[in-house]
């Protein structure tokens, strides 16, 4: 299935806090962003849900979108792959402007992304095998290859035994893990996680976060993760996946993952864009209250 790179990326010491203003224009030698928002706004029959949002996701970067419930985090995530269209502004996905792109042209772009929905959004009339292998089935990949790749993906999330189960017989945590397997099977170039630990108990949440860390450090796929749980966000930033031990381990004291950074929303506006250290030292009153 997914061939891991030769080495996982090492953790680096957190750079000193400095200016955290987002920059959409990459430097001359930097790779173009996988996702770029430019002054995006959207409203649904009322006041704007998101207003003047600008940020980008660089290759190999994991961005954690924080904010209280109902602030527009899931809406923002659905804007990334064109499930929703903004009223104003522009969105670049894999370097292509998707804001006005016809729906038919968006499908191939979406197929290059993986998305894990808040409640998993598994197809309840299909088995786990058919859910995880859904894209492959649509592409008419031979059955034995689908079986093999589905088993590989399920092994990654440690749920190989659920191959023939229906989603109704799975627990909430297992459904999220199956959803992660479904998002990963097609080797996406970007992964979108919509509150992957929402409503789960702490132990199951840690299992899910460990999978996300594993995915980040083994495959280095850029991702955008929405959550309102600070603990999950900090765990992501302060841990790495140890391939030898086969589990998530904490980074040395004072170190954080250099490619995991934060965004924060308040009432539809982006009020923070930067590293964990910047987040912890920001003078913004709302951020401070949220962290406390």
């Amino acid at each position, binding site marked *: 299935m997914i061939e891991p790179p030769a080495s996982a990326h090492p953790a680096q010491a957190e750079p000193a806090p400095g200016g955290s203003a987002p920059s959409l224009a990459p430097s001359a030698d930097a790779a173009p962003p996988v996702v770029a928002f430019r002054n995006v706004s959207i409203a649904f029959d009322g006041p704007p849900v998101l207003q003047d949002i600008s940020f980008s996701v660089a290759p190999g970067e994991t961005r954690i979108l924080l904010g209280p419930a109902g602030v527009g985090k899931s809406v923002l995530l*659905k804007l990334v*792959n064109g*499930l929703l269209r903004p009223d104003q502004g522009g969105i670049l996905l894999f370097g292509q402007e998707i804001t006005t792109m016809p*729906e*038919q042209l968006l*499908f*191939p772009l*979406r*197929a*290059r*992304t993986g*998305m894990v*929905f*808040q*409640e998993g*959004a*598994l*197809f*309840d009339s299909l088995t786990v095998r058919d859910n995880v292998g*859904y*894209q492959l089935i*649509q592409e008419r990949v031979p059955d034995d290859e689908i079986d093999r790749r589905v088993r590989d993906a399920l092994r990654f999330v440690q749920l190989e035994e659920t191959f023939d189960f229906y989603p109704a017989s799975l627990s909430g945590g297992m459904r999220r893990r199956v959803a992660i397997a*479904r998002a990963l099977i097609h080797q996406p170039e970007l992964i*979108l996680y919509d509150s992957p630990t929402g409503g789960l108990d702490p132990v199951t949440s840690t299992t899910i976060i460990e999978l996300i860390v594993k995915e980040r450090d083994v495959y280095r796929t850029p991702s955008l993760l929405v959550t309102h749980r600070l603990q999950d966000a900090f765990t992501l930033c302060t841990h790495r996946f140890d391939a030898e031990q086969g589990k998530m381990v904490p980074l040395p004291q004072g170190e954080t993952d250099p490619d995991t950074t934060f965004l924060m929303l308040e009432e539809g506006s982006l009020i923070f864009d930067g590293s964990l250290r910047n987040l912890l030292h920001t003078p913004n009153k709302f951020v401070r209250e949220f962290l406390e």
Partner: protein
Amino acid sequence: MAIAAIERTAKHMVLTVQDYSLFAHRAVMNLFHPPRYWTDFLIQSNIIGVGSTTIVLLSGFFTGGVLALQSAATLSEFGATAVTGRFVSITMIRELGPVLTGIMVAGRNASSMASELGSMVVTEQIDAMRALGVDPMRKLVTPRLFACISMLLFLTILADAFGLMGGAFVTVFMNHQDGTQYFSQAWEHLRYPDIIQGLVKPLFSGFIIASIGCFYGMRTSGGTEGVGRSTIQAVVTSSVLIIFVDFLVTQVLLTLLPPP
């Protein structure tokens, strides 16, 4: 205040009709461009066609029987009970077969389409499908539309046949009349325009059932309550539209193919 409310309602209705027109247009045009989901077409044909056979046969049989009972009672006043077969066949094939089959299938399948797709919408399965790069219109709506149109044609033919048999059963076993005379009357006075009329109507009914069922299903909002609302709207709208379009088609076909 009242004028503003009327204006809002009128705008909402116009927008709904516009959305439905675009939705139906896309659903039809998808058939002419790949990818096409033939397996889903066959699955839906099985669900709509085979699944509805029993209710359509039973309703057709008893409708034919009731027609024979009622017509024989009236015709006996004129000593014309011999033409019961003619009355039953023309009424069933021209009108009651197509309309009753449409309404029965609307009750069964427009509701199931609206609730199934509506549930998928509120549980984000439709968004998940789109996120996986699969067009729900092509995958879910177009196969249902063409399966419903083609299956309704065959179901109507079955309903007509069982209606004639129901009429024959009542004529022979309850009214104690001659079965040969019933069938010869039914056959001899049947003309091609009657059959054309009976076979054109289910094409419209099939289109209405699937397009309305899927339309209300795909625009469901408001959780499980919204699914229930979509289901009711789908059944009510498709049933009323079937009767309304039946009226229009009858008028057009009677003009194009006038009776002798």
